[in-house]
């Protein structure tokens, strides 16, 4: 051994030859065993010894690929989510519009059906302004004299009487509604046919006047237009009796609630009522 230790450092070529010889033997053995797809024990040992490196590389590579694909999936999901949010917004808007159209259609249909009851000419209009908060309860329509609307035309919707036209321009009309303090409508009680005058109280309701204390009126009675004032056609629902009290004199105090909800008026029908000529109205025998 002492000889070997002394010779080898001085003879690296010898060492090379020995090493290469050993490697050649190893290769020959390996070459034969590879045919049967088996590996030498030495090869297996080297592989096992260094196996953590390829395993770690593979693990890192796989996880990096997973993370990358996860990131791509996440980006795709975020974009998809944004797109879906946009679509939901669009569909929601569309849905609201369709519901609104459906409501409009339903209202217009009922209004048309209602307008067919009248034998007089009618015009349909849209309420564009409604003022029920001030003393003068009024409403502005989007159609005026160009549509044939005149002063004193009655304005109704499917629920009943709204009021009368008090002012017209070419393309607009102002309506005094029945709850206005200056409004007066000739009416009758549907059940007992007792006639009276309905005046607005300026506070969202109306009082029924000129009903004698012995008249048959009870709460819940329906009040219709009497058709005697030369403005409103006969038989349009106006109000429901809500309060009946004995008055201080010969008449009853009767409170009513209009059949129309003035807060939700959209489309209306204007009735071109036959006006009483001025000379007839003014004629005193």
């Amino acid at each position: 051994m002492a000889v070997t230790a002394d010779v080898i450092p001085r003879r690296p070529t010898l060492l090379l030859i020995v090493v290469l010889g050993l490697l050649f033997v190893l290769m020959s053995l390996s070459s034969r065993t590879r045919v049967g797809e088996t590996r030498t024990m030495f090869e297996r040992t080297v592989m096992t010894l260094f196996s953590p490196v390829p395993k770690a590389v593979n693990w890192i590579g796989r996880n990096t690929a997973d993370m990358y694909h996860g990131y791509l999936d996440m980006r795709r999901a975020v974009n998809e989510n944004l797109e879906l949010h946009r679509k939901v917004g669009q569909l929601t808007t569309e849905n609201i519009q369709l519901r609104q159209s459906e409501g409009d259609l339903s209202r217009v249909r009922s209004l048309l059906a209602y307008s067919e009851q009248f034998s007089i000419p009618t015009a349909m209009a849209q309420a564009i302004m409604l003022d029920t908060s001030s003393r003068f309860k009024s409403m502005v329509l989007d159609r005026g004299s160009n549509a044939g609307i005149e002063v004193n035309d009655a304005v109704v919707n499917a629920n009943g009487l709204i009021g009368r036209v008090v002012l017209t321009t070419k393309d607009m009309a102002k309506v005094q509604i029945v709850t206005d303090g200056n409004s007066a409508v000739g009416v009758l009680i549907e059940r007992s046919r007792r006639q009276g005058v309905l005046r607005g109280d300026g506070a969202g309701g109306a009082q029924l006047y000129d009903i004698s204390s012995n008249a048959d009126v009870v709460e819940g009675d329906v009040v219709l237009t009497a058709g005697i004032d030369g403005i409103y056609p006969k038989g349009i629902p106006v109000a429901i009796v809500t309060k009946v009290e004995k008055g201080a004199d010969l008449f009853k105090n009767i409170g009513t609630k209009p059949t129309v909800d003035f807060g939700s008026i959209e489309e209306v029908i204007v009735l071109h009522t036959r006006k009483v000529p001025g000379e007839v109205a003014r004629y005193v025998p």
Partner: protein
Amino acid sequence: MRWLRFAIGLLIALTLHSVFDSFFPNALAFFNPYVILIVYYSMGGNVFGAIFAGVIAGLVQDAYSGPFFGLHAFSLTVCAYTVASINSRLVLRGTLAFGACLVGAVIVNEMVIYVLVNILLKQKIEMFEQGMIVKTLFTGLFGMLVYQLLTLFLREEPIEATRRPSGW
């Protein structure tokens, strides 16, 4: 310290080998990281160390590639011995010298493999010349880049020359 550096280099070479094997299978036809490691180590001029380094690096490469176990160990040992022997007589320093050694080593490595495959398997490697040229070019360029970076960051010669007497 030299062996520690060699061990780290071997792990890096094996990592590159695994990365290329897993994700860029064709890359190993253009580039051999083990030759760079061996030339880098053998530039120190320690012939004995170089022989052992060649055997170890070659066996590791053989464990994961090659037609039979020991082929790369054989070729890398020849390369390591040649480079170390030259460097034990001549003072070769600098990126260009390293590049020249590397190019020579790659050519020797490829030719030894060619001969051994011919002898043991009675087969000829297809497109051997083209493959060798490409591998020499890419390995040489990459090795010079690595050498330059190591010189810049370590601020020292890669492996200190030992100048041991050789048996030529």
